[in-house]
Each structure stands twice: as C-alpha cells, then as structure tokens.
C-alpha cells in the first residue's frame, strides 16, 4: 500500500468516525493546509521521475478529490444533524392561542342596502339620496297628499316646528320629488335611507329604513313594475322561483296602487320564501300619480312610470331570520357580532350576494 493510499484510508476512517465540525476542519487543514499531507505531496510532483510523474499526479488528484468529497459530504451531514438538534430544541406548543385579533362587522341593514343596490344596479337603477329632515311639501303635498288628506293620519309624523312645516321624513318618497325636480326624465333610481314615524311597539320602531324605487320613461307600465319586483325579490332571496301577488291598495302618490305579497311557509321554525300558501306583505308600489308628475314639472302625457317602497329592515329580518325589529337599533354587542357581516363580504353580482 502506497503512502498515499495509507493517508487516504487513515483520514477516511477519521472523517467518518467524527461528529465534530471543528475536528473535520482540522482534518481539512491536516490534509490540504499549507503544510498539509496532501498539499505536501503536490509539492513533490516536480521532483518525481518523469516516467512516474504522470501516474503520481493522477493518483494524487484522485485521492485529493475523494477526500474532498468525503469531507464535504461529511460536513453537510453534520450540519444537518446539528440543525435538526436545534430544531428539536426550538419546538414549541403550536396549540397555544394566536395573538388577539378583533373582527369588525357590518350591520345587517347596511349589508342589505348593499345587496339591494347591487341587484338594482344590474337593471340600470342608480342610487339617490335625500335629507332626513324634510319640508312638509316634499314629504306630503308634492306627493299628492294635501293637508286635508286622511292618508296623512297613516303617517305618525315627527315635527320640528309648531307650524308643522319641518319634519322627519316619514318615507323615502320625497327623494322621488327631489330627484325629478332637479333632473330631466327619464329617471331610474333607488333611494335607500332612514325614515321616521312616531310609533313604537313590538313591530314598530320610531326609526326604520326604506328603499324607494322610481322608474319614469315613455312607455313604462304595470307589467314593467311587476317584472322589476319579481326580478328583485327572486334575486334578493336567492331563490329560483317565487310566488308573488299584487293586491290593489291605495297610496295618494301612486295610481293604480298595489301591495305586494310573497308566498312563504314555515319549515322547522324557519321561514321559507317562495313556497307554501301563506302570504306576507313586503312592499307597496304603483304607477306614479299624474298629479305627482305635474308637481315636479314632468309632463304626464309624455312620461309615466312606477314607484315602489320597501322596508329594508323587514327584508333583512326575513332573509336572515331576525325576529325582533327593535334589536336592530339596540347595539347589543352579541347581536351585532351574531348578525353582522364581515367587511370583506361585499355583495356583488359576479360573486353572489351572500356567501
């Protein structure tokens, strides 16, 4: 066995048996350092007889490569082992709780308004708004409800002055008046917002929410109204079909007027919309009265159309199984958390209204 082979064997053995990185580095030095065993051999190459030189050099390189490889792989091995030991030490209980996070919520009424806007957006309605404080003219007179009209009694009105000229709007219909006064036909708007009536009991709250709809154009008739509401109700309740009934009624600002019922049934204590033989009133609507159009300087001979008013809170109650209207405004943290929606959950057409 040549000297070289001997070195190789000896160090191979040493490298394999150690688990210590610094020892390995020492071996590296011993072999390939300036005065290292292998390095020294390389220095000898020049002094070796020419006939043997080639073989010597080739053997030496071979041994050098082998040892180098051995060293490197051993280093890697040891490093991995050491990391593993470190990782083992660092292990923690991942079942401990995460850092606190608080989740905000959107109120069901706001979510419902966004759902409604999203649905009507698809069929070309845009959103209008009006002030909460209205004058008596916009809230009543312009809507064909003059002072001596008994229909005024159906609205228990909050007044802000003794003369009863300023009031909290009792419905969103004055937005119709404002919109038509400032614009030019055609009109196709919805107007969601706060409304007020001095009425408070189990099913009435002095403040509630309505959404007004108005579509005025040249040839809009009751069939369009029926189609629009049918579309809306189906989309809103996210059902394939609904049962809907138009019932004659009376509002001073529409004629003909209708109240709309939807069919429902109670299954396992839950309300199912669109099935069953019970009826539930959900909105009032009709063709805008020619007197109203005249009041806002729209020519009823050229233009006609429909309007509707829907109780938003009631829609939210039906869709999301909320029993008590008054709980909407009591701000109970538990209630808000339970019925609220994640802020990222924006109702859209492409993703669907609700998850």
């Amino acid at each position, binding site marked *: 066995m040549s000297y070289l082979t001997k070195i190789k064997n000896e160090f191979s053995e040493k490298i394999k048996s150690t688990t210590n990185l610094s020892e390995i580095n020492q071996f590296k030095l011993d072999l390939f350092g300036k005065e290292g065993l292998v390095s020294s051999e390389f220095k000898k190459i020049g002094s070796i007889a020419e006939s043997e030189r080639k073989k010597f050099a080739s053997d030496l390189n071979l041994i050098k490569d082998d040892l180098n490889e051995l060293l490197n792989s051993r280093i890697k091995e040891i490093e991995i082992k050491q990391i593993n030991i470190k990782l083992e030490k660092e292990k923690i209980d991942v079942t*401990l709780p995460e*850092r*606190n*996070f*608080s*989740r*905000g919520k*959107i*109120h069901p009424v*706001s979510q419902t308004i966004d759902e409604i*806007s999203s649905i009507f957006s*698809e*069929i*070309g309605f*845009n*959103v209008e708004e009006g*002030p*909460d*404080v209205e*004058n008596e003219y916009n809230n009543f007179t312009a809507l064909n409800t003059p002072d*001596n009209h*008994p229909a005024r009694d159906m609205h228990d009105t*909050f*007044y*802000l*002055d*003794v003369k009863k000229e*300023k009031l*909290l709007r009792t419905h969103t219909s004055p937005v119709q008046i404002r919109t038509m006064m400032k614009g030019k036909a055609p009109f*196709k708007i919805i107007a969601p917002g706060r409304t007020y009536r*001095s009425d408070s009991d189990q099913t009435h709250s*002095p*403040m509630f929410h309505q959404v007004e709809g108005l579509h005025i154009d040249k040839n809009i*008739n*009751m*069939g*369009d109204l*029926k*189609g*629009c509401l*049918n*579309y809306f109700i189906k989309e809103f309740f996210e059902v394939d079909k609904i049962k809907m009934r*138009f*019932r*004659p*009624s*009376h509002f001073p600002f529409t*004629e*003909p007027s209708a109240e709309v019922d939807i069919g429902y049934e109670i299954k396992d204590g839950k309300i199912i919309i669109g099935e069953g033989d019970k009826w539930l009133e959900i909105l009032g609507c009709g*063709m805008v*009265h*020619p007197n109203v159009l005249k009041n806002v300087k729209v020519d009823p001979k050229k233009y006609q159309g429909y309007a509707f008013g829907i109780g938003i809170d009631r829609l939210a109650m039906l869709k999301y199984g909320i029993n008590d209207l008054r709980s909407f405004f*009591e*701000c*109970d*943290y538990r209630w*808000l958390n339970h019925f*609220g929606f994640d*802020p990222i959950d*924006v109702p859209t057409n492409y993703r669907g209204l609700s998850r």
Partner: protein
Amino acid sequence: MKITYDWLKDHLKTNKSEKILVDKLTDIGLEVESIDDVSSDLDKFLVAKILKAKKHPNADRLKVCNVDIGNKKTCEVVCGAPNAKEGLLTIYAPPGAIIPKNNMKLSVTKIRDVTSYGMLCSEAELNLSNESDGIIELKKNEFDKKVGKKYFQKKNSNLIDLSITPNRPDCLGVRGIARDLAAAGFGKFKIYKQKKIKFRGNKKIKVKISKEKNQGCFAFGSCLINNVKNIESPKWLKDKLISIGQKPISAIVDVTNYIMLDQNRPLHAYDADKIKKGIVIRNSKNGEKFKALNNKEYKLSEGMCVISDGNGVLGLGGIIGGTTTGTEFNTKNVLLESAYFSPRSIRKTSKNLNIDTDAKFRFERGIDPLSIEEGLIKAAELIAEICGGEINKIDIQNISKFKSTEIKFDINSFQKTSGFKISNKVMTKILNDLGFIVKSNRNFLNLKVPSWRPDITQEIDVIEELMRIYGYDKIKLIDPIKDRKTPTLKKSQKLFHFLQRSVAAKGYLEAITWSFTDSRVNDLFKSKNKNIEIVNPISSDLNVLRNSIFSNLIFYLNKNLNRDFKDLSLFEIGPVFYGSNPGEQETVIGGLRSGKVSRLSWIEKERNVDIFDIKKDVFQTLVEAGYEKSKFFVDDKTPDYYHPGKSGRVFLNKGKDKVVAYFGEIHPVIIKKMNIKTESLIGFEIFLDNLKESKKSLKDQKNKFSISDFQKSERDFAFIIDKNFDTQTLIDIIFNTDRELVKDVTIFDVYEGEKIPNGKKSIALNVNIQSLNKPLNEADLEKLNKLIIDNVERKTGAKIRS
C-alpha cells in the same frame, strides 16, 4: 270596517263560501285584516234556573245559589245580585267563559271561603244593555223549557275586519262593499228600491244654513217624527249590531247607527223638544263651549261648523252631538238629521279638538251627497216601525247643488298604463256595475261618476277601477332589461361604502342608532350647536336630533360595558344635524374604543387602548380611501368633549382645508357624568362631507411607476428640542431639506428625563435616503447629513445630540 257575511247578504245574492269571499275581498283591494269567530265565546252562556238561594255564611250581601244548568247538572254559584231568588230564570256563565263587557275569563274561585263555579250575569256584563243592577230575569213562558240551552243563538257568520283605504268612503258601509263584490263577479247586487212613503204631517223644525265664508255644511236634511216611544231595539237589530261588535243603546240610536253602518250614511237624532227656536248651522265663535255626547266639554275656536239653536251650540256638525239635545228613553219627538259636511272642514275641526268618531271618520273621507233623503226615509220608517209615531215631511236645506263628476275616458289609456287589453264591453260592464253611467263614443267613454265615489276625478282613477275589478293577476310580467346607462353610485356614495367597510375591517362593529337622542346626553357633545328639538317626541329621552354621532353611540357603548364586555370597538356612519332645515346635516363616521389591548394575553403585554391606536385607525382609513398621508396635517384644537391634551384634528392639507377628522380621549368629565366604567375610552370622527372627492378616478390617480435601484442609505439622528415642539413639524423640515433624496423619516424614540434638560425632549429618528438618478457616495451623504442638522437646528432651535 267590520262586517259579517250575513249582513253582506242583505245586499248580495250569493251562495259562495266564506273562504272565497275573503279571497275576493282581498283581490279587489278590500284587505281582510282578520276573521274573528265571535260566536264561539258566546256559546258558553247558558239559560239556567236558580233552584235555591241562601245567604252566604260569611257575607251579608252575597248569596250562594244552587243553579240548574240543564242536563241534570247543578252547581253552586256565589252571587251578589239582590234579585237572585229561588225559581229565577237567568243566564249562567261557566268557568272558562269570557265576559263580553270586560273580556275577563272566568275561573273557579273562592269567594269568602265558598267556592263559586261560574257566574250569573247582568245585562251590562253581556253588553245587552246598560242594566247592571241585578242579574238578567228571563221570561218564564219563553225560557222555562230552555234551561241548559245556549242563550245566544249560534251565528254562522264570522266577524270580518277589513282595512278600508282612505279613498273608499263608500266601502265604510256594507252596501258599498257588496256593490264592489258584485262588480267583481261575486254574487248579484240587490238593488234597493225606495218605497213610496206617506208622510203623516208637515210639521218641521226650522233649519237654516247660514251663508258665510268657509261654511262647512253644504246640505242639511231633517225629518221630525212625533209621538214616538223610544224602547230597546228588537232582537234582529240588536243582533245585527252585536254581530259586528257594536253595543245596542236604544231603538232611535241603534237605527241611526244601523243606517250608517249599512249604507255609510251618518245620521243624528235630536230630542226635538229640547231644541229652542229652530236650528242654525253656522261657524262657531271663539270661546263657545258645549258638552259632547262623550261627556267632555269642548271650547271652540272660530270657524268650526256647529249646529246651534236659540240656546247655543248643540253639536259639531258631522263629528259629535251634544248632551243637551240627545235622545233618551223618554224622548217623544225626534228630529233626524242627514247632512253633508265638507271633508276639509271636518278634518280641520276634529284635528283641532282631537276628536275621533265614526261619523267624523266617514265625513272626512266624503259621504255620498245624494244619500241625504234616502237615509232619512229609511231611518224614519224604521223608527216609526219600532217606536211608533208620525213621520212628517222631509225638509232639505242646501247652499250648493251637487254636480256629478264627468270624465271623458280614453279607452287606449287603459292599456298604456296596465300593459294589457280588455274589451270595451268588459270595461262598460265593470263601470256600470260600479255605478257609473257610461256612454260609448268611438275611442272614448263618457262617464258620469257615481255620487258615492268622491275619489274618482280623472282618467287614472278609472283605470285603477278597471284594473282592480278585472284583477291585478292579469297584469303581464315584463322582465327588466339588464342595461346600465349611469353609474350606480356617485363618488360620495362610493366613499361612504368604502369608509364604512374600511373602519369595520379594523375590528369595529357597526351600530345603527336613532337619529334622535336624549338632550341631556346630546348636551355633552353638541359643542356650539343648538338643540334641534322634536315638537312631538316619542319619549322625553328621544327629544332632540343628534348634533354628534357620539350622543347615542356612547350611550350604547356604555350599555355594553354594563353587560360586562370590556374591550369594545363600535362605530356608526350616519347623519348628524346642525340645523332644523332640510339639508342641515352631514355624514359622519364615529368610532369608539374602550378598555385594553391584549387583555389577559399569554404572549403580549397588556395595555390600555390609547390615542395612537385610534390615530392609526383614522390614518389608515384615510390612506386606504386614497388620501396622501404625507400631506396630512394635525393640530391639537378639538371640541370640548375630547381630552384637551390628548386629542387632535386632521386636515388633508396644511392650512387650506376643512377638518376631516378628530381623534382622542373622551373628556374625563363626560366619562364621569355618564358613569362609564372602563380603563380607557377613545373616539374618532371622520367628516365625509369635508373629504374632498378627487376628480380623477383611481386609474388616473396612479403616478408614473418609477423606482430606483441605487443603493439606499440610512442615517440616525437624535435632537434635543423644546418639549412642546411638534414632531410633525420636525419631520416636515427634514423632508423639505431635500425632497428628492429624503425618502422616509421614522421616529424611533421619544425621551424626556435624565440627561435631558428640563423643558426639552429627545427625539431619535431614522432618515431613509435614496436617489433616483445616481449612486450616492460618502461625500453626498455627508453633505445631506450636515444640511439636515443645520436646517433642524436653525429652524427649530434644536441641538443635535452627540
């Protein structure tokens, strides 16, 4: 409006079921509110006979009666009636029965230690009359064989309660409802034919309608009936009134009520002998008084339509009669009134005096002006039939003549509104059935509107009638077109939705609270605003419009704290008001946080929520909404409900803008006043109307994308500066030293105390430097370094800390 099917059948020939009736009523717009089975309650009342009546062992005035209740059963009943005696036939109510007078449900009770099984009833208790002294005494020959039988005959007809819309006065009478039903194909309308009446005399009481401005009475018909004997109404009439929940009073009053309910023709009956020197219908004078039949005295103001005689006001025409001339059982001569009062006058007076009666309700909606005579004759005949007496010739005074409404109806208008077609023949039939007189004229129908339909004045009213009777179910559904010509939301609306969700995303729960609030709470937050009072608040603690978003929010936050929640984040977005005129409102987002951050955390240090938490929420929200943080300007001038030293206000730009937000601790005095118990309470307000809307949309707002790949450098500085010096200004100065090279300034330490002179603070900051165009060498950096220090020292009086 309450009706029964039986009563309807007086006017309607039909044999359809009640279920079909109810559906039909709803279909034609006479909404059925409820159907009450009244008869079942009354079924329990039995004819009974007292077998023995002995004195109650523990009470002198009570008797213990042994009562035969039929079917060989007897029971013990304790009774206080003086007339309870052996052999008396009376009416027995068993335990479980509901007494009509007070709706009390009977149960087995002990009265002074004697158990009583049920009750023996007086007429008053059964709403049969006002007789409450003693129990009912039934006639022996009539009821002796009926012991144990039901006293009230089982009625087949349920009580149907209709919600009649205010445009349909004609349906406030059973006959009007029948007419509508018949037009819609439900049965055949029985047309009432007026019989010739023979008047027995020409006596009358002189009536004059004074001709004055705003006279509320247009016509006044009267009929004097002499020598009547006012008695209890016959059973058929009593039953009729009871069947719809009315209380029979006396024949004369019952007859007038019956005509009103049946034909919507209100009448009034006077005791003619109590009228002094004829009747004048005139406007009231200020201060006149009268006592109404509801036993209240009213003081009138000027211009109310009154019926008066030589002694003064007898009644308010069409609203309520007075006590002085009311009929009683001893009334001998009756004057019947059948008049027309204008809805406007009725409404004005009744609102003013706050009186609501059946007559007022009807006159206010409009009574058939041509029904005066028919009503008088029908009532007079009935009274004479029941009470005897001689009917005198009818007298009708009027100051204006009724003229029928005529409408030229364009046949095509129907389809234009309804979207479907019906034939002329069908149109004509429906209108005829409703009482219109129809003359066809090519494309038009010339219509004469029936006098009982004051609501029909123009074409659209006729269209509604046709659609209603023909059926709304015939309306063909036209699917909407999915087409959008204008954007759904305006910029301000988009901002609203964006901010709403942005704040919620920071852990706040959205609340919705009233727009009105308690002035006592509002006072704490209204700053310089005046209270905007509601004239008729629903309760004293909701008496003003809110001047601040906090007024209600803080109240409800406190409620939740009292529920034992501690670390709360609540917000609301909505209107606050600064005046009582329409539009004097602005949209605000207000948020409140209470308690601690990381309460009871195993990993993080617990601390109170503080102003910089909420400042972060405000800034992040504004930045997310697209506003540039580097331009924000903050100072410390805030409203008085914030902690004066721990609150700030935010502008989008230095100097020239409106306040867009406040943030800070809620003033400790308010926390104390409202008795709020929490470690910390911080709030913010963002004023949406003060946020400028960028004219550009987001796609245009993005700057050209330019980044630098040249080496970034950082330099740390520490300055010793006046304690009250704004860090904001310091940062500005550093940025302005070289707008191009200074990329960011970060404050990493603020320190006061040891080694720092009194009245000073040390601010340590890190400056991030990078050039867009070239690599910076040591000399460049050194130059900037020096510039920054020079600038800061010169402009602020600060000293660099060595």
